[in-house]
């Protein structure tokens, strides 16, 4: 009995000993971290990704690619890369952390940062902020916006021209106004080349549940349903969930009826597994990488980027479509190029909602 009791007390004291040991063994490496702060006079860049972060093979990765390119080309020190909590309550805190760390350029990836940038930027007038997808009207904020509907219009036309059934599918990640722009462009482009085309539109999740941007299993389930319903080309504007669409295209394709998938944001043909490449017709390119790269470049060259809104559209080659793998037929490309010219010269106006 007595013996028993002491083992229990010991069990409670053990953690203390463990902790003391862990701390004690380590006192030698305390000074290892004091070199941050940097001796180099170069531009200090920090980035806050949106949920999913680096590695989502889509939106955030595009921003990361632009940053990597700029860092390499201009020999910048390693940027700080942050990502908010799942609940998203610490966006402003992260921006402030970077600004307090004397970061010259703070890049906020995604429209959800709009309120946080609006609140933080006026306090740190020595730093420049850049926000992707939204306009924040402040002298030290660069707003980087995209005409997603224009790129989506072109892949919509490509889808309708390639489809044999005249039935198309659209999978949106989360039903937000941003993704509605992709949908509107896609549907308009498809109807332009085939007025009888139908588009089966499905969204994975509803805000504030943002899991739809990172749920390949649900993406696959929805794609399977749309293919079963007769669609033979599906466009996913759903971040990481798009991977499920590619799987479904491969799994449901037969020799008689080929099922196509269209990627988004990055050129996903280059990112997916080799076995999935034959099923990716094209990708709608939203060149967040170009936007981030150009912003860093302008800062390095001493230009003022704050207070400006830049629209990345077809005209400035900020959005577009990919032909990697040549899965898209040459005559289709010819027709899309014509539409592209018409959008650029203004004779076609693409709806955004």
């Amino acid at each position, binding site marked *: 009995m007595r013996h028993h009791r002491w083992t229990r*007390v010991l069990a409670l004291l053990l953690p203390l000993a463990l902790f003391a040991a862990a701390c004690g063994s380590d006192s030698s490496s305390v000074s290892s971290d004091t070199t941050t702060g940097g001796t180099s006079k170069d531009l200090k860049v920090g980035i806050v990704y949106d949920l999913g972060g680096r590695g989502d093979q889509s939106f955030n990765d595009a921003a990361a690619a632009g940053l990597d390119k700029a860092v390499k080309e201009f020999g910048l020190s390693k940027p700080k890369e942050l990502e908010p909590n799942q*609940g998203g309550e610490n966006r402003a805190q992260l921006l402030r952390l970077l600004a307090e760390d004397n970061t010259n350029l703070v890049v906020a990836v995604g429209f959800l940062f709009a309120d946080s940038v609006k609140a933080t930027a006026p306090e740190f007038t020595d730093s420049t902020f850049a926000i992707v997808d939204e306009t924040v009207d402040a002298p030290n904020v660069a707003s980087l916006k995209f005409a997603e509907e224009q790129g989506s219009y072109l892949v919509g036309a490509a889808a309708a021209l390639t489809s044999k059934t005249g039935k198309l599918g659209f999978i949106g990640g989360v039903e937000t106004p941003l993704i509605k722009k992709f949908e509107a462009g896609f549907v308009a482009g498809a109807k332009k080349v085939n007025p009888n085309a139908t588009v089966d539109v499905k969204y994975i999740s509803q*805000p504030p549940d943002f899991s739809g941007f990172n749920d390949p299993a649900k993406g696959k389930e929805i794609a399977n349903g749309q293919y079963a319903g007769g669609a033979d080309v599906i466009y996913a504007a759903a971040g990481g969930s798009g991977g499920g669409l590619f799987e479904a295209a491969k799994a449901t394709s037969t020799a008689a009826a080929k099922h196509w998938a269209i990627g988004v944001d990055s050129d996903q043909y280059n990112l997916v597994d080799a076995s999935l490449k034959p099923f990716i017709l094209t990708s709608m390119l939203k060149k967040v990488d170009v936007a981030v790269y150009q912003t860093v470049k302008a800062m390095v060259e001493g230009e003022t980027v704050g207070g400006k809104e830049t629209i990345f559209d077809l005209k400035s080659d900020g959005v577009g479509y990919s032909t990697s793998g040549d899965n898209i037929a040459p005559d289709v490309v010819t027709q899309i190029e014509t539409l592209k010219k018409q959008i650029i010269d203004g004779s076609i106006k693409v709806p955004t909602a």
Partner: protein
Amino acid sequence: MSGGGKILRRIGWGLLPPAAALLFALAISSIVLQLSGNSPWTTFSAMWEYGTRERTLITTVNLAVPLYLSAVAVAIGFKMGLFNIGVEGQYRLAAVMSAAAGAAVSLPPVLHVPFIILVAMVTGAAWAGVAGVLKATRGVHEVIATIMLNTIATGIGAYLLANYFQDRDNSLNTKTKLIPTSGWVPSLNRLLGSVPTGANLQGFLVGALVVGILFYVVVWRTRFGFDLRATGLNPFAAQASGVNAKGMIVRTMLLSGAIAGLVGLPEMLGFFHRYTLDFTTGLGFAGIAVALLGRNHPVGMAVAALLFGFLSSSAQILDLKDVPKEIVGIMQGVILLSVVVAYEVVRRIRAAGEVRAAAEHDRVREPAAPVPA
């Protein structure tokens, strides 16, 4: 033994498990840090340094307030053995409804805030009440009902926001109309004297204190609270002594949901003044952890909420030190798991002690009480 000594002893026994759990969590996370090539000492001292700055402390309190409200909502259910896992859906739906209602009316400040609070509490109560009625009348387990109602709440909230409550402008962030200033809860910055720019101690802290006190009074000092605790300890005994079990289930869920309705308000009334698409999620689930850690006690949960708030706010510095911030998630998990174990260990030690004391007591008394022949 004197009464004062007894109370001190009780407090000591009560504090031992969480303290041990905290140390254990520090130990485990030190090992994880060490194994992943980071220095535990540098990590913890960076967290402490950043976490004790005034601005971070204010953030800690701001994070703790909704966590506390959520924990109280969960604890009300726990006290009678009901697991309200639906606080998440209840507060989100309550936030949409009360933001829309708050923006739709114009009232003097003394009425506007209470009106928004009332709408939020009624919405939360109604949503939790669905699960209560289902359990009382159809025997549907509340865990199943509330978790499904969470999903439905997300859908309804998004539908209402997109179709009825939306304030259309050229921004991509869907939101309700701005609540007029009369419906804002002022910050408590003035109480602190000077605060760092941009820091904002949210006024709903007062609301959380009131809720904590009411929770104590209702659960420990009223007939309803007695029935609640009695049902939680032994439902059959409570029923046998005249407690209406079905009525208690519904009333408890209503009360739990009403408090859950408040969870989204600190941020909404103190900062955003509207419901936006990126409204903070996950507070309902975090509240379950805080309630467990705080043993469903009004003070215990306050300490637990502050601890969790401190861990998340101070962890933000870790990204800048290139230490993975996920270490804090590990710490929170280990704290929870080990506190449950530690409480059980302490309970057994105390039970064994009581048995021994009783035996000793009997041995002393036995000769003095002669058994009649």
